[in-house]
């Protein structure tokens, strides 16, 4: 059986989700008339403050909730169907994993659930655990893992069946800058493999560098959606970084621009980002994971 290969990994049309609070008709509207498409092969950010409807939208995509109105499709398959999740990997927000299993057992368990063939399973489990850098700790119980290790084993279980779409729910919440950078690297690597990555976060600065497109939700409604460069770039401005100019030469430059009808709007000292400074100074942990 072949399916059409849609341009969108996720298509959401007119999605509304109400939660019933009591018999008298009072409802909590978590998502209202959301229409959205997540293009295949891109990194898509679903942003918004707490309570904006991000988690509800994710749960509907994953088939964990039914929409009140509208529809949601994953690679053309309605999200309520079990087969819509064949090509989806999910990293939950908090570490919702079985603490009594070792890392290897956990990934193996989910690999079997997702239908990874038995012949390939052991090899595949080793591959993904190695890829997320947990080979040294894979024999230990998940209950002994640190937050960063939990995120990595979470990624491993999300990737074990080689999904086309990976959904990361707040992947960098509670993770240190080093861990955040590693996760960002992983996401970009997934993109180079042609995967589609959907990230939710309320930490806007952390994901600005990795998302191709973003959608911003607030109180269940779509506020803004588009390519990151288009949204944050100031289209009618340019920034030139030059060596430090003496005052006289700076005035000469201002005059030259003025003669051509342009204004020198600001003269500032360029800044690196604090997280980049931190990363350049702090040593990375060895493979195998840090102790809790």
């Amino acid at each position, binding site marked *: 059986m072949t399916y059409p290969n849609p341009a969108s990994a996720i298509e959401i049309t007119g999605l509304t989700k*109400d939660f*019933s*609070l*009591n*018999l*008298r*008709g*009072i409802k909590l509207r978590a998502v209202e008339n959301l229409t959205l498409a997540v293009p295949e092969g891109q990194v898509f950010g679903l942003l918004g403050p707490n309570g904006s409807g991000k988690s509800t939208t994710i749960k509907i995509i994953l088939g964990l909730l039914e929409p009140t109105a509208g529809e949601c499709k994953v690679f053309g398959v309605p999200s309520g169907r079990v087969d819509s999740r064949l090509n989806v990997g999910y990293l939950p927000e908090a570490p919702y994993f079985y603490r009594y299993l070792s890392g290897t057992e956990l990934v193996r368990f989910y690999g079997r659930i997702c239908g990874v063939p038995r012949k390939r399973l052991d090899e595949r489990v080793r591959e993904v655990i190695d890829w997320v850098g947990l080979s040294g700790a894979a024999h230990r119980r998940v209950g002994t893992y640190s937050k960063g290790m939990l995120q990595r084993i979470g990624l491993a279980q999300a990737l074990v069946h080689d999904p086309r779409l990976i959904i990361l729910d707040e992947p960098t919440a509670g993770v240190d800058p080093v861990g955040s950078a590693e996760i960002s690297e992983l996401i970009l690597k997934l993109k180079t493999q042609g995967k589609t990555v959907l990230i939710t976060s309320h930490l806007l600065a952390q994901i600005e560098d990795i998302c191709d497109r973003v959608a911003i939700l607030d109180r269940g409604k779509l506020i803004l959606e588009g390519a990151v460069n288009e949204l944050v770039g100031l289209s009618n401005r340019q920034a030139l970084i030059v060596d430090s100019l003496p005052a006289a030469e700076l005035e000469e430059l201002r005059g030259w621009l003025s003669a051509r009808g342009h204004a020198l709007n600001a003269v500032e000292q360029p800044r690196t980002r604090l997280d980049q400074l931190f990363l350049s100074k702090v040593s990375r942990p060895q493979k195998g994971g840090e102790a809790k």
Partner: protein
Amino acid sequence: MKFNLAALRPLWTGLLVVAALAVTGAAIRPFEEPAWQAVRAQQPALKLDSLQSALGQGITAGLLGGFRAIVADFFWIKTNSVWEDSDLPATQTFIKLVTAIDPRPLYFWQNGSRMIAYDMPNWRIIAAGGYEKTPQAEQRRIDEEQSAVALKYLNEAFGHHPDSPLLYVEIANVYLNRLKDKASAAEAYRKAALLPNAPYYAGRIYPELLRKLGRHAEAYAWLKQLYPTLPKDIDTAKGITEFQVQSAMAPVVLERIRELEKELNIPQIEVFKP
């Protein structure tokens, strides 16, 4: 007032669950009924009114819940405990309580009757001053009183064990050992011996008692019809074990027949031929 139908979903689900279970229960009843009757047949009626005041609600619930055997066992252990203290009222109460809760084990009736007939007279006589101080007539009266209680108790047991030879043996022993009533004891042994799975000794003690009562001819007739029914040799095919052959004591019975033939002057040509 507008209703939110989605919020009623738990109610619909609940109603569906109850309806589905009710339909299942009704549909499965004919299939279950023969098994349920078999279980009921094993459980004699529980006289709750007499028990509830003695037991309290918690244990009554346990009885109703199907834990009669274990509750009875627990109270039997309690019976043993108060018996060790020679506490007559408590022992008597617990004996009757145990068989009221679970009358099925013959063991409770046998041992209960023995406590009543053998141990309680002893306690009463000791409480009255001991064997040397208590007059013989008083001792006799106590024996008769307790024996009457034991016999009444054993007769009650027949309501639950109508074909038990061992109950008749207990009755016979009370008559013989406590009341010194050989005639009544003999009759009880006879009834025991006629029932299936009776112990072999019942069939031997009956004619012995008849002899002591001077009823030799009856004893002789009984032994002659008894002897052919006794196992003489081990026969695995028929399930006759060495223990049964030894218990039956066929040679001893034949010996008694020969003794009675001498006592009754039976002519040689008419003697019993095994």
